[in-house]
């Protein structure tokens, strides 16, 4: 298809879709409206189960099955990336030369690293209380680990980041989420039912029944997943080279 024809098709399709969308926007309830039936029920249910952060309650209790699916997508994408970025037969591994990093940058990275790591873990742990949780904290913790690339060098990063361990951790935390869910079936209630553990005291770390457990599983899963993803990409960008003999 020529460029011109593509632009015509695109213009037609885009115009139609835009008209449809804009018409729909004017049929929407106004921004900031007061009618949120599902949301109100969710808030109510969250408070009944003594989970202070309603969003965590929705994610890990009321709609925990969604989160199961999302977690599986994460798991699948990471597995897919590992498979797609594998070292193929015509590639070899090169040794990256250590690069000079300015001393202030290095010091800064090494100071920030533990702070960021701890704040990541803090964000995971307080998921059912304050804004944050497994998804956010996991990303923060995983990214923090990569400050070591700046702070020391790639080799140091590789040493503290045994990728196999993270892959196993990724799979185990995904399995832990499922096993927690299955415990509900075995106990005779329902899959992912939050009825096994006491709900605890409102606004404390141990409140919310299984919410903290699932939250921790997700935190670990996300952290491992992001570490593996970044590792695979770094691997490609820094280490893996094409075999010069071929191609």
């Amino acid at each position, binding site marked *: 298809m020529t460029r011109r024809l593509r632009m015509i098709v695109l213009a037609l399709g885009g115009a139609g879709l835009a008209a449809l969308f804009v018409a729909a926007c004017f049929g929407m309830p*106004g921004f900031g409206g007061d009618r949120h039936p599902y*949301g109100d029920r969710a808030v109510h249910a969250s408070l009944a189960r003594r989970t202070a952060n*309603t*969003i965590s309650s929705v994610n890990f209790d009321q709609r925990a099955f969604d989160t199961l699916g999302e977690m599986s997508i994460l798991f699948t994408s990471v597995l*897919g*990336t590992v498979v*797609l970025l594998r070292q193929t037969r015509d590639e070899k591994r090169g040794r990256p030369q250590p690069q000079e990093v300015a001393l202030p940058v290095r010091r800064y990275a090494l100071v920030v690293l533990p702070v960021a790591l701890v704040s990541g873990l803090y964000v995971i742990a307080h998921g059912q209380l304050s804004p944050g949780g497994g998804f956010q904290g996991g*990303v923060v913790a995983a990214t923090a680990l990569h400050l070591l690339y700046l702070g020391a060098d790639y080799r140091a990063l590789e040493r503290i980041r045994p990728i196999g361990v993270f892959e196993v951790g990724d799979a185990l935390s995904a399995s832990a989420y499922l096993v927690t869910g299955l415990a509900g079936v075995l106990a005779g209630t329902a899959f992912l039912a939050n009825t096994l553990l006491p709900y605890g005291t409102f606004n404390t770390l141990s409140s919310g029944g299984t919410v903290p457990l699932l939250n921790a599983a997700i935190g670990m899963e996300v952290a491992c997943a992001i570490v593996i993803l970044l590792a695979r990409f770094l691997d490609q960008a820094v280490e893996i080279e094409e075999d010069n003999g071929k191609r």
Partner: protein
Amino acid sequence: MTVLPYLVAVWIFLTGCYGLATSRNLIHAVGCLAVCQSATYVLLLAVGYRAGATAPVYSDIKPGSRPVVDPVVQALTLTDIVVGATVTALLLSLVMQISKRHGTVDPDELRELRG
């Protein structure tokens, strides 16, 4: 004015589509797809917003003292953001392999799979 956020979401979605269709670099195209996805976040959160309400987190407010915004859409968006990043990673790894096998990341130069 009450439709502005929705219109912004629509604008972002269509802009992303335009970029995707006219992109000359597959990495850029994947970036445009990420733009399309951010339109869904804006739309979802705009739908859940409640004027004058506060965040649905009760660690420092008393339950029932103030109206809160819809937590459901926030939960949906939250998970979607992380997942979006990993799917982007999956697509980017495909792009890297395309660059290895075809020697280009310009969609106009990929000359297989036709007819």
